[in-house]
């Protein structure tokens, strides 16, 4: 099936390329603050435009070679050996060699945490086109780094690189007006074939500006808020893309003992530290209603951090929209409404907590309001509270917070649920730590190949006895997966699409070189 699609696409390329070299205008945001340097985080989502990566993910998220023609993992899982294609060139004409790859990885490691390179030791060129990447501990999700870190030229990489990037990607820069627009043109040295657009312009600015560009017929692809997506202007169609861009309630797992984090933020919440509360919340939430309320129907219910991805375990979920089961769970755990005020209590402690949302985010606000309303029905009083991100940073260890994640990379699951990541960045703010889950996650990372790691990822969510999923510890109550909405010119064929990660806008460019213009000018 995929092969057939690919063949049809190839045919389409050859047939349509001659008549479709035309400029393309996109208003999908994504302007990087620090410029176009992969070593400072550019290109993690979407297409790095100027650079290419060792591997890439196809529409099914399967890894395939880009700069690499062959890659393998040593027996002990510590050394990735990569063989490069020999015909790849940077946009200045210089060949891409193993030295460049080693330079990129080693420099990214030394750049200090801007690129997630945990357990990475060093890269060594073992030949002109072969390179070894050495890890200190087995880490199967390191393959995702190979698919996201753009390779930079060792010779010309320097302080000004972020503004004038040179890479082996499909495009080279024509002009970047910061805050306004980026113009790129095809890189004639690109190894991936011909790009059928003479120029591609990325217009930055507010959402409203993008809408205006679409209405005047200037832009060909525009990221639009879901609330307006269903009324595209003439000549455009609405595109709703499935994502793993999820939103859920993060629960503080520890009881409040007066403990404080290194930054002085309080840790723990006596109500949510009780598993019965967390399970009941998972059982009570009517996720379809939340999709209707907060997303205008453009989304789907979420039960885990990676719904529909290969490492997801659907068995870990609990049926939602079941207030009776939720009430039974609470009663069994001793949460009863003795004083008849509508809020259950247990040993004098009322089942009451705040649901903190970032006040700048209307979708999360709607989710907080919707969840609070639904929880009232089972005797839990949840009070929405809108705060700035700064304030949330100080509240997230002791309050329920509406967070969002979603990546094409199972290491995110590791980061969210492994005890080692408690209060590291935003990853595990609730201090979730279950030795059995930790062991499953570590087993997954030390698997010998990706397929062998999948059962371990799934077992971390639910292994029949425990797990981070709702049937186990219910460390989160996931609510919805968003759909990302775009207006796309009716003349543009974007080919098969990936399920999109967190972030509405730029990820749509992932397969940009493969897009085709189907109308005659």
């Amino acid at each position, binding site marked *: 099936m995929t092969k057939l699609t690919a063949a049809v696409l190839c045919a389409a390329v050859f047939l349509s390329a001659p008549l479709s070299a035309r400029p393309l205008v996109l208003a999908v945001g994504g302007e990087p603050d620090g410029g176009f340097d992969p070593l400072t985080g550019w290109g993690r989502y979407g297409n790095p435009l100027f650079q290419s990566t060792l591997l890439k993910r196809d529409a099914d998220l399967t890894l395939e070679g880009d700069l690499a023609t062959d890659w393998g993992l040593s027996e002990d899982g510590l050394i990735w050996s990569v063989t490069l294609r020999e015909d790849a060139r940077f946009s200045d004409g210089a060949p891409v060699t193993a030295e460049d790859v080693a330079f990129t990885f080693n420099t990214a490691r030394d750049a200090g945490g801007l690129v997630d390179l945990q357990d990475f030791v060093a890269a060594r060129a073992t030949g002109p086109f072969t390179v070894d990447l050495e890890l200190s501990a087995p880490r199967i999700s390191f393959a995702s780094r190979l698919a996201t870190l753009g390779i930079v030229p060792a010779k010309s990489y320097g302080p000004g690189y972020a503004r004038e990037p040179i890479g082996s990607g499909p495009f080279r820069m024509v002009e970047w007006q910061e805050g306004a627009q980026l113009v790129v043109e095809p890189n004639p040295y690109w190894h991936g074939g011909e790009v059928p657009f003479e120029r591609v312009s990325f217009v930055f600015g507010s959402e*409203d500006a993008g*809408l205006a560009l679409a209405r005047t017929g200037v832009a060909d692809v525009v990221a639009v*808020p879901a*609330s*307006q997506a269903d009324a595209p202007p003439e000549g455009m169609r609405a595109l709703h893309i499935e994502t793993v861009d999820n939103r859920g309630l993060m629960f503080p797992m520890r009881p409040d003992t007066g403990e404080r984090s290194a930054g002085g933020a309080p840790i723990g919440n006596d109500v949510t530290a009780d598993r019965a509360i967390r399970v009941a919340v998972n059982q009570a939430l009517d996720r379809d*209603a939340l999709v*209707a*309320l907060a997303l*205008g129907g453009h989304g789907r219910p979420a039960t885990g951090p990676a719904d529909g991805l290969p490492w997801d375990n659907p068995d870990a979920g609990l049926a939602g929209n079941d207030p009776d089961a939720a009430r039974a769970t609470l009663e069994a755990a001793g949460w009863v409404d003795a004083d008849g005020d509508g809020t259950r209590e247990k040993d004098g402690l009322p089942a009451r907590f705040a649901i903190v*949302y970032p*006040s*700048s985010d*209307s979708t999360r*606000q*709607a989710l*907080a*309001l*919707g969840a609070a*309303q639904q929880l009232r029905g089972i005797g839990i009083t949840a009070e*929405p*509270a*809108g*705060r*700035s991100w700064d*304030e949330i940073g100080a509240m997230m260890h002791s309050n329920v917070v509406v967070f969002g994640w979603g990546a094409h990379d199972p290491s995110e699951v590791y980061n969210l649920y492994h005890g080692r990541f408690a209060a590291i960045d935003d990853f595990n703010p609730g201090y979730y730590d279950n030795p059995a889950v930790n062991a499953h996650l570590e087993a997954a990372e030390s698997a010998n190949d990706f397929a062998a790691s999948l059962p371990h990822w799934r077992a971390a969510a639910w292994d029949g006895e425990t797990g981070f999923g709702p049937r186990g510890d219910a460390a989160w109550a996931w609510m919805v997966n968003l759909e990302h909405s775009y207006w796309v010119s009716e003349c543009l064929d974007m080919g098969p699409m990936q399920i999109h990660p967190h972030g509405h806008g730029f990820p749509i460019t992932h397969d940009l070189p493969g897009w085709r213009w189907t109308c005659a000018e």
Partner: protein
Amino acid sequence: MTALDISADGEGTVRGIRPPLHRGLWAACLLILVLGGSALLPANLLEIDASAIGRAPDPGHPFGTDSLGRDVAARTLAALAMSVKVGLVAATASTGIALLLSLAAASNRVADQAVGVLTELALGLPHFVLLIMIAYAMGGGTNGVVVAIAFTHWPRLARLLRHEAQGVAASDYVAASQALGRPAHWIARHHMAPHLAPHLIAGFVLIFPHAILHEAGLSFIGLGIEPHLPSIGVMLAESLREIIAGRWWVAVAPGAGLLLVALAFERFGEALRVAAEPPGGAS
């Protein structure tokens, strides 16, 4: 200014009381309507409702519903009540600051200089910028709004009161009282208070609509009241996007409500100010 003039002014305020009373009644009626109405509002009218998202005005929802299915009319009433409460607290605090500073200024020369400089300084700063800075420093939220408004609206009134207090303090009858050995608090009560009170009341009523408008402004730009709570500024900010989506009714009720309340109090305050002012005097 002589004692005779001032007593004549006092007479003048009594004679010119009709328009302020008339307008005061209007404002008071609105206040009671808003506060009473919101207190009597059934809680379920403010609830989100996924089955009633974005309804146009109809008999069930006279001003339609918003993007979360909340009744706009009910939410506007609750928002106005919130604004009025914030406005009352902030205007009271602001008036209090103005009074304290003017009394301090009347007490001795150094304090008078200090208050004068402070007042001019505060007046010279752009109003809304100062408001934003204080609200931001307070971390936003309802308290931030109240503090920000309280600390930005006092200078005009303080300047007026300071002038009045100085005038009274320099008057012959205060000198006479002092010569008769009256203590300072007696002078304050019997000479200062009767002259400052009308200005104080007019000042308060004039600050009130500004407080409401600025509450709405701060909430509009996201530095004010939490966005899920009913507030005029929040509702107007949300309505921006709604209008683009064609739901004009989301903006009508909060906009008109804010206009009505602010205008009623502005006119009442203006009438009071004119009445409290000596004929032809400038303040």
